[in-house]
């Protein structure tokens, strides 16, 4: 075994440790999407139907948000073997995260074959693997039942097999399958995946002319695979998700257009309409959203605003990587080759899907940026060490290398500290903490009451209760009634069995006969006798249990 193989194995072990260690306890809690994935997989295993009674669907209705089904089917065997628990939902993503580290090692190799990078290929590959292994962005989304991480792994593999197909033609079919699988797995990749394929074909167009038999076969095969997805997407319900989170759901620009037109002397003059119209307003907004993802504040200082997608006091990447990214970009621009073009183009395509939605910058929807960014960072490290080697002052070389190593060590320690110590305490409700404890207590209390009302403060409580109680799916399928969508396009379930999920109105509920009321601290008035409580990791109450007076 050669030295670099040995290092690679160490890096992969490191990646595995970082992704698997206590993955069921950190992040603390289980978010509603994870619960939905787990319970639907369980439901399929038990009854062959999802929670709403559809047989083996391609997209899952879930909260009316029609989740792509790929990750559900990945979770299926894990639920079969491990049972319905947090680990089973998170393990596939973590495993794909570990595999991604190996895949980026191979991809870096293919890319340096296709470009003229003037640096050691093995070094480039190993640093890429190492940087991805410890990347906070990638670790975060590998630790959790995230569809996006699975889809990104598939994209990564798709690109890799695409490049390998230049030597072994049949790999093009594998590549096509992977690209299409990623589209079955996550919403954003439905846009990113085809764009990336188009970009690949344009960049490497001379490989495909004249068209080979494999190319024609892969294309036909792809079209065949895409038909079911096309039918689902073109269905009005499939499009509904986009109308909830899409750019156009933000009505701010329209209000502004009207305000600005109002300030013109003639309201609807040609010039007022030429300057202030919907197309311009949304185009500008799109431009801003897009650039937000490439901004230093998102990448290094503040990160995503959504607590579920970030840890406190951190950007998406390590602070020290700001300098490396800068060096990497410069090196990339300096050195030609098709592989280099691919990295650039991927980086430019990656945030597109996220920019079409209205909460930006969005680390979850733009996760696939992590691949080109990691490759650039690796180039940054390599060009940095190469630049140092040119100098003959040994002390200088040593100082800078030590600075780099200590810089990374500090960043890594800080991230660890934030992730394991502060995350669950600073953002206690980010991961719907407390439902597994709640379910345990319900097992004890449920038989004593006729009616149990649970506050709907924490996102989708019904699915959490289903998950942790392992509520019989066949029974639930008979009871389920989905509410109409709210303005973000989400529905929920208000009751099943003796459980009900509503905002707690204490004055109404206190007279309800033999009822157990479970709410947050603000739901239950002070002075009411609590029969039990569940606490967040920071000691604040998550749930309080109270009885009705009759």
């Amino acid at each position, binding site marked *: 075994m050669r030295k670099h193989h040995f290092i690679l194995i160490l890096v992969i072990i490191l990646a595995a440790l970082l992704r698997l260690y206590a993955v069921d306890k950190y992040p603390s809690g289980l978010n509603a999407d994870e619960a939905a994935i787990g319970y639907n997989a369980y439901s399929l295993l038990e009854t062959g139907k999802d929670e709403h009674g559809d047989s083996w669907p391609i997209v899952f209705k879930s909260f009316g948000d029609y989740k792509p089904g790929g990750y559900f089917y990945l979770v299926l065997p894990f639920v079969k073997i491990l049972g319905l628990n947090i680990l089973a939902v998170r393990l596939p993503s973590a495993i794909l995260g570990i595999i991604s580290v190996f895949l980026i090692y191979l991809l870096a190799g293919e890319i340096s074959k296709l470009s003229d990078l003037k640096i050691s290929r093995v070094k480039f590959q190993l640093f890429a693997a190492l940087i991805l292994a410890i990347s906070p962005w990638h670790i975060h989304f590998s630790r959790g039942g995230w569809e996006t991480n699975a889809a990104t792994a598939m994209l990564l593999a798709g690109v890799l097999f695409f490049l390998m197909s230049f030597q072994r033609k049949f790999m093009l079919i594998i590549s096509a399958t992977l690209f299409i699988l990623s589209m079955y797995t996550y919403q954003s990749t439905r846009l990113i995946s085809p764009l990336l394929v188009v970009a690949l074909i344009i960049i490497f167009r001379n490989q495909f002319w004249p068209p080979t038999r494999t190319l024609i076969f892969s294309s036909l095969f792809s079209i065949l695979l895409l038909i079911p997805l096309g039918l689902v997407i073109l269905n009005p319900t499939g499009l509904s998700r986009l109308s909830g989170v899409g750019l156009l759901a933000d009505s701010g620009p329209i209000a502004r257009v009207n305000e600005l037109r109002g300030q013109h002397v003639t309201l609807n003059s040609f010039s007022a309409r030429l300057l202030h119209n919907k197309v311009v307003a949304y185009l500008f907004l799109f431009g801003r959203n897009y650039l937000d993802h490439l901004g230093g504040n998102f990448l290094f200082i503040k990160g995503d605003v959504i607590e579920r997608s970030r840890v406190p006091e951190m950007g998406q990447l390590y*602070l020290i990587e700001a300098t490396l990214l800068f060096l990497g970009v410069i090196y990339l621009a300096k050195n030609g080759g098709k592989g280099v073009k691919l990295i650039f183009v991927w980086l430019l395509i990656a945030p597109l899907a996220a920019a079409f939605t209205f909460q930006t910058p969005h680390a979850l929807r733009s996760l696939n940026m992590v691949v080109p960014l990691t490759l650039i960072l690796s180039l940054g490290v390599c060009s940095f060490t190469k630049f140092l080697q040119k100098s003959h002052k040994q002390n200088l070389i040593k100082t800078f290398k030590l600075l780099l190593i200590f810089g990374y060590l500090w960043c890594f320690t800080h991230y660890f500290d934030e992730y394991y110590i502060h995350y669950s305490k600073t953002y206690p409700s980010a991961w719907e903490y407390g439902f597994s404890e709640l379910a345990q207590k319900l097992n004890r209390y449920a038989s004593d009451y006729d009616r149990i009302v649970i506050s709907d403060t924490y996102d989708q409580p019904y699915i959490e209760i289903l998950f942790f109680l392992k509520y019989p799916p066949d029974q639930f399928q008979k009871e389920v009634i989905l509410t109409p969508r709210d303005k973000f396009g989400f529905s929920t379930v208000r009751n099943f069995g003796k459980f009900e999920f509503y905002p707690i109105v204490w004055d109404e509920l206190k007279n309800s006969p033999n009822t157990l009321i479970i709410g947050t601290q603000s739901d239950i008035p002070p002075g009411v006798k609590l029969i039990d409580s569940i606490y967040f990791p920071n000691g604040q109450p998550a749930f309080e249990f109270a009885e009705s007076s009759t």
Partner: protein
Amino acid sequence: MKNLRLNLTLFVTLLIIGAALRLWLLGNDGHPLLWDEAALGYNAYSIAKTGADEYGVKFPLVLKSFGDYKPGLYSYAAIPSIIKFGLSEFSVRLPSAIAGIAIIILIYLITEELFPGVGLFSSFVATLNPWLVHFSRAAWEANLCLMFTLFGIWLFLQARKKPKLLVLSAISFGLTLLTYQSAKLTSPLIIFCLVALWGKPLLVKSTKLFLLSTFVLIGIVLPIILSAASSSGRLTVMSTFSYPRPEADSQKIALEEGISQNSFQFKLLHGQWLASLNGVLERYFNHFSGRFLFYEGDWDNGRLGSPYVGQFYWLDGLFLVIGFVFLIKFREKKSAVFLFCWIIISPLPAALSRDIVQSVRALNLSVPISILAGVGAYRLLLAMVRLPKILYIGTFSVLLVAYFWNVYYYLDSYFVHAPVLQSKDWLYGYKETVKRVSEINQSAQQVIFTQKFGQPYIYSLFYAKVDPKAYQSQAVLTENPNGDVGYVEKFANFRFRNIYWPEDRKLGKTFFVGTEEELPTRDIDPKQSKIIQDIVRPDGSIAFRIVETY
């Protein structure tokens, strides 16, 4: 030869457009005078008439003004126009507008030195650039300072062939410090870059000149450096380091981790240094964000840009990317390195000050980015020329129409929307109020003027053209204990303080100038007092209410 003439024609056309954009409706474009402009204007008036500033200091280098100790050069620059056209908005703003036109020429010259052939493109971008136009249309010291900086840079570049110009360059750089505070940080850094890149041959071949220039520079800036001690209070207020992380936040972090704030672990992972570093970097990155550069410009201060317009046009973004990629491979390495260093240095004063984003203190950045965009536009045109003719003309016209559409969008924002949307930011109403009061107050009754919008005294001096001699003898500034700007309490029959109507209504024979809240309509008793006039802003809100008591 023919090419030269074409170039000249194009450049003169650009200059005419640039001059028109900077001079058209100058002083009367719906952007009323700001405090500092009024102060610079009145001090210039005072110096022109009496040889001393408002406090009677003979020919000061630094103006005490509101206690912020402004570098005084702008006032001197305004003296000729004030003598010629009288004390008016136009005459105060003219030096900045002229500096703005000179900046276009200087950008052309500098670009030709650095990247021969690109000058026309960079000055095209600069001519129409919202950032440069905005700060040329009001009395911004920063704009005059920028002109001196550019002059200094160009003279230095010229001095590579004609070493004697080095002395002039030193003078020009010296003047920047006499003009604007931020120059204390940017000018030394820019000089350092210039000397590091091109200084060696000058130092070796013309040592005496080099030393002479150094002494000249030190001679000019020494008084300003020595007087800096007196303005340190203001510097403390402006510095981002004066606003540490709230104690409660630090306590929370320490508590979560279960350690004391004095422990090594806390200081290493969560110390104030990290909060400060993140604060500075956040501000720094903000100046390179898409939001700042293209979407809405300075989003923190209404008066530092036009509504919904970035500091650059969207198409400049395209030029920038092309320019960046090209420059990295550019064979004249020093030119490229200088431009990148200039870009990196420029936002520093803004990043170190308290505002989250600040387009005045970062004004320097507008020039290197314009030059870089010019390089990109030039390369793009060279690439387009190689296309088939129809395609070339087509793309060219599309780009040109899109660019000028964006220019139109900006001008619409500046001339139509800013006067309405930003009327409060631009302190609308002072002029109208002072004029109205001096009209009706023929018998010199006491006037009580609210301090709510800051520094009413300077507007009373400016618009009433109070004789500086008469004012100097009674000028007293009450210093602000926090080191921020102070205020003047009275002169002649004017009293400047906030109004407390329940008490103040008892004062007879007085004019009150207050806000709507200070002088509520229902409390104006017609037996004792009457509303003379409400000064209404273009957006319909009331700026000032003038009330007379009998």
